[in-house]
């Protein structure tokens, strides 16, 4: 015990003496800290690769942080980065859909410029509460409902063109499964809503009945990744269980799969393949599966004819927009001006209506045909 105390005293003494000697004001240079909600996210990993390359090319010092889908961890990383002398913070918020979480990050940033991206900082009905109230911040992302609208329309158009082929049991209705990534995320909420609503709008306009959720007992009409991780595994597990009860033999096969992102789409395809569907060999029945993001694996799946469509979220465009904004801010440009310049630079960028510091990166439908 005595030895322990002695060791502790020595450590403390060393630490303190170092602290006194080593502490000095850091030189003012641009150091960018990029906080990712989770390194394990497939789409954001492609953005990360693109952004790392962009920042390196621009000669900006940067460091990536993995929030591991834990808001507490992310807040701690931000606090630590601020004490470490980073000058610009780029934040992919863990708790999306709550203004308070963003506000907490801004407070921790202590006046440093904060560029939020990808995951919305303002909840549904809380628009302007964060972005208008803080001078030194911006948001670069997508128009949350857009992907849902685009996915819904794509599904509607596809069904109108292939209705009889998709309707396996010939009951005149299409039964579908829906996989939701995260109950708290506004993008997930909109995709879950509009993916079906907009498809129904196209169907009814063409004199077809609306989609029917495959499980009449599930009033939510979706299956949710319980960890809010938009994960492949969650969709695989749900779909495997679904396929045990719903099959062509029973005449109640799920005829359409809609997923909030490509990871979940691919998970459900894996489950379908174990049940003998979507093998991409031309002989097996193909259940149309739709995702969002157009990640490389999803593009491959579409090319292999195991997946039907996705909505392209432009990872490179997103990275370019962030990097350009960071560069301008580092040079001393006001953050709103930096965003405005980026918006001018390409067609896929636009400033959100009613905002000066909210930049949208456009989505595009992707079915493999055009590229």
């Amino acid at each position: 015990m005595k030895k322990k105390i002695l060791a502790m005293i020595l450590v403390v003494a060393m630490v303190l003496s170092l602290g006194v000697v080593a502490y000095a004001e850091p030189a003012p240079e641009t150091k960018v800290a990029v906080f990712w909600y989770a390194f394990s996210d497939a789409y954001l990993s492609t953005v990360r690769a693109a952004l790392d390359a962009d920042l390196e090319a621009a000669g900006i010092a940067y460091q990536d942080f993995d929030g591991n889908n834990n808001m507490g961890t992310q807040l701690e990383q931000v606090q630590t980065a601020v004490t470490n002398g980073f000058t610009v913070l780029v934040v992919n918020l863990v708790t999306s859909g709550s203004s308070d979480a963003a506000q907490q990050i801004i407070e921790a940033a202590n006046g440093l410029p904060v560029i939020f991206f990808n995951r919305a900082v303002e909840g549904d009905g809380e628009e302007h509460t964060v972005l208008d109230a803080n001078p030194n911040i911006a948001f670069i992302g997508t128009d949350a409902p857009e992907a849902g609208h685009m996915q819904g329309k794509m599904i509607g158009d596809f069904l109108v063109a292939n209705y009889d082929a998709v309707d396996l049991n010939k009951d005149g209705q299409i039964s579908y499964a829906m996989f939701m990534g995260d109950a708290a995320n506004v993008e997930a909420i909109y995709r879950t809503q509009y993916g079906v609503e907009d498809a129904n709008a196209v169907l009814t306009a063409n004199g077809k009945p609306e989609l029917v959720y495959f499980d009449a007992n599930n009033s939510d009409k979706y299956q949710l990744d319980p960890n809010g991780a938009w994960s492949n595994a969650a969709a695989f597990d749900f779909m495997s269980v679904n396929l045990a009860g719903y099959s062509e033999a029973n005449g109640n096969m799920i005829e359409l799969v809609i997923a909030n992102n490509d990871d979940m789409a691919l998970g459900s395809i894996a489950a379908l393949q174990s049940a003998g569907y979507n093998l991409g060999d031309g002989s097996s029945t193909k259940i149309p599966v739709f995702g969002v993001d157009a990640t490389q694996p999803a593009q491959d799946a579409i090319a292999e004819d195991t997946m039907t469509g996705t909505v392209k979220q432009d990872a490179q465009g997103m990275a370019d927009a962030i990097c350009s904004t960071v560069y301008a801010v580092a040079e001393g440009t006001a953050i709103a001006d930096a965003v405005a310049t980026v918006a001018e630079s390409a067609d896929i960028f636009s400033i959100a209506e009613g905002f000066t510091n909210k930049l949208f990166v456009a989505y595009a439908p992707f079915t493999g045909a055009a590229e």
Partner: protein
Amino acid sequence: MPKTNYFKRKQEEYRALDSLDRRRFWTNGLLNNALYILMAAFIIFTAIVNKNFLGPSSIVNIITLAAVSLPMALGIGGCIVLTGTDLSAGRVFGLAAGMTAAFLQNRAASKLIFAKLPATTGGWIIVVMLMVMLAGAVIGLVNGFFVAKFSLHPFIVTLATQLITYGIILMFFQINGNGGGPISNVAKEFKNVVSGPAFKIEAWNVSIPWYVLFAVVLVVIMWFVWNKTRFGKNMFAVGSNTEAARVSGVNVFLTTMLVHTLAGALYGFSGFVEAARLGSVTAATGLNNECDAIAACVIGGVSFVGGTGNIGGIVLGVFVLRIIFVALNMLGINPNLQYIIKGAIILAACSLDMRKYLVRK
């Protein structure tokens, strides 16, 4: 002066040793204190590479981060002393954080979980704190009951309650049309007295939040409970040898129940602080938080062998983990590698620590 006598005696003892014993004295000394020596080297290395690491604001940051994880580690430490563990801690923490946020929402907010609640006064904040600690204590009581009554290993009991608690969390987050969304808009009055600054150090331009003081108070209370009460002594007796404790008249059933109940109440308290700190809570809040708490205890010398450990060790373990967290980030190490390094450090620290017990046996 007893201290100088001690060192004088040690010196004389050392002179009396032959060369082989002297070498053994040094290697043992090095290995037994390897954790401290390695940490000191690690701190010095980080400080040389990045001088911000030991800047005043960074030191305050490390203390603040340690205060966040202390209450849970203090609770889980007791379970480990009983040769057990507690996997439900993170979820209990999440439930408590969710309840706190829901009960202490800004009354003017548009989206309220509970429409009719008293205004956010000091009294109501204390009532909510006691409520969430009680909720945690009830889950802890269930853990303790099944461990003590049916001699089940705490691993499996708390695995089960972890799942049950998560189910409750998911239901709680759907109250009043919330639909699983985050519970936010936590009242300012509540944040001010928990995560708001308790005092400010003007010279360094840093402020210390209230929960750092709460953590200090908790450490003192827990030190008293572990060292100065019959309950604390019983806990160590049960942890070292259940049968021997039973024969000597210790109520093993009650002790086990109480250790888990106390732990649950402490998780509840950590959740209460977390709600103020984050300002918004999701159903995923608290996921896997028990892992860091368990690691902190074991690094601090609370052994899974049972019956060994002390509060000072837990505090040290929490600081070691937080220093590692901050240092790895300050060194600019790739996050992929950070997990590997953190894992390796925990493994090395625990192996070195275990060596002491193996030698003693």
